[in-house]
């Protein structure tokens, strides 16, 4: 409600007609509003401060160290960076397959040693599942005809993966994690 002292931006006569009606009905239904209309002498400063605007959402920034660590592990055990940085053109599928074995075996080792992976849903894929009200939308993604109300009935197309435990190496203070694979010089 604009205060009487404010000269600028006053409502026009046409705007004042619906406003008067709204004030009439609100005074009728809202005793607190009626009290403020009844005592116009109350200084404007005493009016409750407008609620603060909702804070802007803060997005987390992941620290690069853990990502670099994982990259270093995937390079050390699986040669992942070597593999992905190469241009596949000019290599036969057989040669790529040979290298893929190294990458697959190594990645598997890294996942096994550093993460405990569990499926989100234990049902077999392709079987019907029912999601009750309040299911965890972060853990289960709905697709297709997403309409209606819970419980939702559908078919499990992917079981999902959940990391139950993460075991990354602890790093010494001052360790440069950005070297994900040191150069090697044989003496």
């Amino acid at each position: 409600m604009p205060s009487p002292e404010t000269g600028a931006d006053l409502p026009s006569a046409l705007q004042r007609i619906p406003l008067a009606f709204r004030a009439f009905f609100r005074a009728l239904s809202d005793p607190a509003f009626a009290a403020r209309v009844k005592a116009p002498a109350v200084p404007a400063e005493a009016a409750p401060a407008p609620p603060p605007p909702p804070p802007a959402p803060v997005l987390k920034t992941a620290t690069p160290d853990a990502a670099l660590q994982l990259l270093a592990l995937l390079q050390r055990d699986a040669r992942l960076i070597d593999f992905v940085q190469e241009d596949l053109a000019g290599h036969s599928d057989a040669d790529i397959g040979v290298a893929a074995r190294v990458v697959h075996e190594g990645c598997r080792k890294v996942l096994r040693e550093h993460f405990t992976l569990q499926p989100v849903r234990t049902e077999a894929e392709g079987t019907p599942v029912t999601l009750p009200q309040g299911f965890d939308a972060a853990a289960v993604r709905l697709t297709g005809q997403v309409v209606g109300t819970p419980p939702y009935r559908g078919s499990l197309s992917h079981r999902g993966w959940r990391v139950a435990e993460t075991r990354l190496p602890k790093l010494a203070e001052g360790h440069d994690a950005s070297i994900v694979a040191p150069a090697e010089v044989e003496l």
Partner: protein
Amino acid sequence: MNATRSKATTETARADAPAADARYAIGIDLGTTHSALSWVDIGASDGDRTAHGVLPVAQLTAPGAVEDQPLLPSFLYLPHADELSPGDLTLPWRADADFAVGQFARSRGATTPIRLVSSAKSWLCHPGVDRRAAILPSEAPPEVAKVSPLEASVRYLAHLRAAWNHAHPEAPFEAQNVTVTIPASFDPAARELTAEAAQAAGYPPVTLLEEPQAALYSWIAASEGRWRKAVTPGDVILVVDVGGGTSDFSLIAVVEREGNLELHRVAVGDHILLGGDNMDLALAHAVARKLAGQGTTLDAWQMRALTHASRVAKETLLGDASLASHPLVVPSRGSKLIGGSVRTELTRAELDATLLEGFFPQVEAAARPLARTRAGLAQLGLPYAQDAAVTRHLAAFLARQVGALADLPANAGRQDPDASFLHPTAVLFNGGVFKSPLLVERLRSALDAWLAAEGAPPARVLEGADLDLAVARGAAYHGYVRRGRGVRIRGGTARAYYVGVESSMPAVPGVEPPVRALCVAPFGMEEGTEAELPPEEVGLVVGEPVHFRFFGSSVRRQDQVGTVLESWAADELQELEALHATLPAEGRPAGEVVPVKLVARATEAGTLELDAVARGGGERWKVEFDVRGGAGE
């Protein structure tokens, strides 16, 4: 070296004082290739049900990166001063280390072997070298500051202690009850060195336990009491323990006494340096020979990668009998992975030829190990087994121990009196090698064929063993049962011991006087007992070190203290490290010969000690094992 100690100091150093208020019984498996620490929470355990666990051992896995792992690889890396950045060797409990042990030591050492100490345990029991001399890594150039086999063991043990203390600040390691395992075949000098290493690593007084016994304890603990149903009085359990670097056999008899089941360890095998690592190496060499035949020669770096790949292929093929082959890839060393990698495969035929025929051939019970060097086993310095066939070593062991039940009539009565070898009725497998059901089956079928040939029933396999961690778990459980909480395996010394005395025949110039063997410790001396004084005296020279030849026998059960052997069969007595003693002058003229008797004592800690006792028994001097390698021969 501490040449002479009075009995009083000896007993203080070896006092059997497992801390009475210890909260945990800790078991340490100090292995050739891996070490582990297991524990039993004494207060939280009740009878057959124990609260137990394995310590995740914090260790370096890469420069500056520390991770918890269930096993600590028994490797020590001695880096060059410029090799790593400051802080790269930082552990949660120390920042100033100039060496690394564990996984990082092993992986870094694979590319720089001149700075890597491996198989320290095999060196610790190598009679040909000085175990207290800085000789490792054996191939290191002079610039590298070498360490002794003893010191390397101290560092592994100290790392485990520090890792425990870091994880359990509320229960200091030094106040717990600690058991350290050793191969059953360790001779008295190697046992003594292990106890010494534990002491130097800041351990409280430890108890030594034989690894095959630890494996059986682990099986008992895991059964939570059901073991009493799984074995019956009269059973003879064969423990076959094939670790990364050694093979170890023991026989344990099940005896009923006053209504209770008792376990008696009646025999142990000889020291055989032969294990899973030899098998991986042999496979890699077989594959490398095939590649060489196709025109691809591998360098040392690729050879190590091939060994790793062969191990994975071996485990896959051994785990699934339906697979005919498994591909092997040796990745390129440079960043060009595609096109630069070498691909081959390990076929089942190759696996069978190398592993099953090479290490587990189906031989007769009368087969004996061959004394010839095999390709793929030789490594500078260590006396690896000349015959790789585990089954032949086992056949020889069982035949040697055909009389092992002589002191247990109830068990002996169940054996065929005409048997050519001791017939086990049950078998317990231990060691990572036996994760493969195929290898278990292979060894079992050889054993069953021997038994069937003599009309004996097949041996039952005791199921449910945890192959990687059984020794550490069993050691912790042993610490728990030592407090009277469960069945204890009785054993005593697994050998009789003899001192060489020169015969009194007149000296013939140019001919070494024949040596007679004087028994100083009989077979099966219980821990915590002292042997009687032998009637025969030997002479010690005042002020000069005097050496005695020393022998052990794992088959002469009947000899008593004072028995003198004029001659013996070649495989009856084995010469061990020499003994030496130095008499301090103490009021005697130097050079005087003092007649003494040698008396042996089996300590509660599991070591053997010898004292020289002067006439009248008033004075005693400690007799030391000569661990300097070759002295006295």
